[in-house]
């Protein structure tokens, strides 16, 4: 009898835990939840080059959501360099392109995105890329000439 009661308690507890998990999962994957994913065509860019962001917004059931506003903030090594507000199309996709300034600092750039639509909970994501400072042509030429001169001098001395 005591064993039966204990078993009942254990089953009841398990059922409660399962119900809680189900509720959490259901909320996380309900139609009112947005999911945003975004990508870049490259991992590394030169200063002055264009960065194109492509992405898609879906609901918890995997259906594309249109008319979602996507807030974009691009952070460089020394602060915010670009902002944008774009909207998802009928198929849930969105795209945004911007140019990295010529004098941009080299380093890691993080692109933060927030998707929001009335009646849905917001979704966020972030992607990153590397920006390489553009080589100054004159510096490259000067460095090449210096290396060549050192090599020639070394070769002559050896002779």
């Amino acid at each position, binding site marked *: 009898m005591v064993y039966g009661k204990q078993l009942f308690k254990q089953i009841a507890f398990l059922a409660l835990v399962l119900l809680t998990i189900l509720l959490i999962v259901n909320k996380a994957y309900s139609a*009112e939840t947005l999911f945003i994913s975004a990508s870049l065509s490259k991992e590394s860019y030169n200063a*002055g080059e264009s960065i194109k962001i492509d992405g898609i917004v879906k609901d918890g059931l995997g259906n594309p959501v249109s*008319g979602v*506003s996507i*807030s*974009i*903030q691009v*952070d460089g090594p020394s*602060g*915010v*360099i*670009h*902002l944008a*507000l*774009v*909207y998802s*199309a009928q198929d849930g996709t969105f795209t945004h392109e*911007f*140019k*990295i*300034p*010529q004098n941009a600092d080299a380093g890691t750039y*993080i692109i*933060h*995105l*927030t998707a*929001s*639509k*009335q*009646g*849905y909970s*917001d979704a*966020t994501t*972030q992607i990153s890329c590397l920006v390489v400072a553009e080589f100054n042509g004159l510096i490259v030429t000067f460095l090449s000439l210096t290396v060549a001169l050192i090599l020639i001098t070394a070769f002559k001395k050896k002779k």
Partner: protein
Amino acid sequence: MKQKIFATIYLTLFILSIMLPTILANENEDLLVIRVEPSYRTIKAGETAIYSIKVESLTRFPQIVMLEVNGLPENSIGIFTPEKGRTPFKSKLTIITTIQTPAGAYEITIIAVSGDKEEEAKTALIVNPPETTITSTITTSTSITRTLYVNVQTDKTSYNQNETVKISGSVQDQFRNPLESIEVSIQVVNPLGNIVHSALTKTNSLGIYFDNFTIGELGYSIFTPGTYTVFVTASKEGYLDGYAHASFIIGETNIPSINFVSVNITDLNGEIKSEFTQGEALIIWVTVENSGATLEKAYVWVEIDDPNTTPLGVYFNIGDLENGKIKTIGFSFTISANAYKGVYVAKAFVSNDLISKGGKFLASTDAVFIVN
């Protein structure tokens, strides 16, 4: 004697009964008045013409008015500073021509749009052939893909049930020329995320579109007070779609409802200008209105993009945007001595936090200026 008094009162009441509907009708008719000065300007191709504009409302209630221009010559651009304002307000139209602008006399129409009303004022621009010594040209943005620029506004920022919401806006190309017959899709979303109104319309010859709906006639039987959002999408083959949104409130709301009232660009003396020179400093004045709940620690941002769409700088201000209040913030910017010549865009945003901390933009707008 009594009969005379009776007759006078009767006559007065009779006259009043005839006049009252007219007086009341005038009170409710949101009349706009737009004035432009001077009546004409003469310039040489490659030069700039500036017109002063005054927009007033004949009613007690201020109205949000958007300005448009039509009749510009080819290879020219017209910039309003500001492009939008709350009556009464003054604006400046700067028409910038290039040496390729054909000589001739042009009738310039300035249109003030508010709700479903539009009022126009006319002026003239006489363009003479350029002098052979003129060498300055305007470098316009060399964008590979053509983009549609669309904006949207409602005639008011808050409504009661059974009131009519008047939606209007305009569609322009990247050079801010109005575009005709552009398909504009409009959707109004209620606080629960349900579409309560949708419409498909086209821009008229001035690049303007209109739409309206009555709140009491919404398809949804349960009336939901709160913040409503109007989404518009402008589409045309060969162009990238343009998107915009505006918000308004019905009844009470517990979330902020932010709209830009105007973006003015001035020199350091506070004079509104749309044309600057290399090395000059300017101030971008952003005026924001919150008709919803107070937004604490709101971020008001400005980004300046050069003619090649490269962002030159991002600036922000943090402060509370209180319910029912209008706030103006100035951002100073110095154009570098070797800056590109052409059309610059000042983009303004309001967010509830940094986007990097999960915040989102609640409103956005832009204004343009020229570096010559």
